């Protein structure tokens, strides 16, 4: 901070006018000797929806968790909204960010999990206002009003006093989306948001996500819902064994996969 103020820090290489929300550059991640991500390069543009598909264990979740630094990369760089995640870079040297700084970076990134992870000891309303009140120090009354508006938006205005366990899976997942939106994120990460749902409940969650995409939210969605990917996605990425095998406009990738591995995977899920 006290250094020469005119030095442009390297971790802001991307100008604020850059329309890239996520930039992943040769992202690697290993767990012990298991190499889960082996060089992921991709960009998500502002307002775009990128869908990620691939076989189980191919590293989709791990990559998503790297984006908000729930996992530390082993190698490579990852920027969100122009900020290098988890590190400060000065003159080519990396400095780990303090835990509270990482927490601050995560505030602009919403995440929705496969099994909802709602806080069971709090009411639906409590879940949604928790982060705005505790993290952003918003006034309780304001946070409440916004939370109720968000719950209305996901069609659950009448459930604000319920507890998570009283709700169906689809309702819980919609609450989880409202909870993430309450922090006014610029990027939303979805990790198989409908995989734990009964088939008849999948639609209600996809509807909410579709609305969100239409309103211009930048979204990175790991999913097996090919219909959703085709309809809502701007880009479809096929991942396998820790690398991006193929990516492009969803219609193209789905109808005309170029790679054998993509073809094999799609023949199984379509």
């Amino acid at each position: 901070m006290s250094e020469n103020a005119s030095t442009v820090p390297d971790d802001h290489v991307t100008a604020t006018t850059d329309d890239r929300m996520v930039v992943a550059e040769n992202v690697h991640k290993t767990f012990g000797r298991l190499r889960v991500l082996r060089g992921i390069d991709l960009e998500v543009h502002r307002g775009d929806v990128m869908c990620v598909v691939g076989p189980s264990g191919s590293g989709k979740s791990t990559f998503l968790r790297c984006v908000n630094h729930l996992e530390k990369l082993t190698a490579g760089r990852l920027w969100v909204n122009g900020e290098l995640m988890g590190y400060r870079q000065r003159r080519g040297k990396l400095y780990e960010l303090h835990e509270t700084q990482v927490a601050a970076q995560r505030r602009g990134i919403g995440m929705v999990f496969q099994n909802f992870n709602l806080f069971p000891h709090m009411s639906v309303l409590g879940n949604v206002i928790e982060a705005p009140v505790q993290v952003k120090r918003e006034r309780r009354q304001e946070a409440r009003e916004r939370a109720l508006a968000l719950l209305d938006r996901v069609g659950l205005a009448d459930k604000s006093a319920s507890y998570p366990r009283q709700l169906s899976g689809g309702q819980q997942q919609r609450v989880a989306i409202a909870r993430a939106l309450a922090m006014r994120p610029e990027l939303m990460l979805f990790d198989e948001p409908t995989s734990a749902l009964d088939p008849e409940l999948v639609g209600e969650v996809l509807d909410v996500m579709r609305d969100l995409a239409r309103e211009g939210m930048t979204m990175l969605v790991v999913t097996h819902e090919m219909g959703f990917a085709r309809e809502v996605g701007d880009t479809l990425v096929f991942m396998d064994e820790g690398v991006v095998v193929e990516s492009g406009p969803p219609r193209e990738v789905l109808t005309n996969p170029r790679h054998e591995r993509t073809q094999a995977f799609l023949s199984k899920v379509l």
Partner: protein
Amino acid sequence: MSTTTEPPRPPGEPVPGRPEPEPIKAVPVRYPGRWIVAAILLVLAGMLVNMLVTNDAFDWPFMLDNMFTEPVLVGVRTTLILTVLCMAIGILLGIIAAVMRLSGNPILVAMAWLYTWFFRAVPRLVLCVVFGNLGILYSHLEFGLPFDNYWMPWLGFDGDARFFSVPMNDLLTAFMAAFLALALSEGAYMAEIVRAGLLSVDKGQTEAAQALGMSRGKVLRRITLPQALRVIVPPSGNETIALLKDTSLVSAIPLTTELFFQLQAVGNRTFNLFPMLVAACLWYLAITSLLMVGQYFLERSFTKGDRQAQTGVKAMQSKAGA
């Protein structure tokens, strides 16, 4: 009786054109063994009551005269204060030690491990005696607790703890030794309970909270610890009861204002010991029962979310049935 009661209505509409089946009427299985056992127990209970009433060793009037005297009541107070104080500090120490154990910082992990290892390994009776004799190590202590001259008398105890050159005997009153021994020991047990509680909370909870931008401390305070309480509270009730009973050990320090010592002293003085031992049993039974009532309500309040979920399910079911 059973012939007049209505058969329970099956859910949904009866199948049209099909008669309702006859409710089952069967002779229930008889359990003659139960009656035999009950009869034996009744006889034994009668013998017990007979002994309690006729055996002069109980000397009930003497016991009643002596179990509510001034020194005994002071003993009850000391026992209660010691229990509550040591439990409160024990819970605090337990949370701190548990968080240290789970922090991932090797120094903190080692410190917490060492602490729990030591204080769980040494028996409480031995701890009490050792703390009572710490004055042998240092005759004077060079620092003290702040404002002791205010709060020590306020709590109703003698002695003070001045800065610089405090005689150990003044600082380490019998009460202080008892407090330290029991609180530190309790903290070690609570550490394991709290740790188990924190580990029982799904990792997804921490991740969801972190993804919302919460710091580690906030995740602990707002998300993991409140959920861990459901696992922590029931064994803590047992810990409180165990601690209450272990306060009887502090007479070895010796802290003589404690309940059991007082009751025993009356018995020894009057050469009528047995009634006072019965009085001790009754006192501990009474206080423990009181604690158990408290534990019941505490546990109820910590499973609130569950119960509300259950009533919610019931409401949904009845709605579906209607």
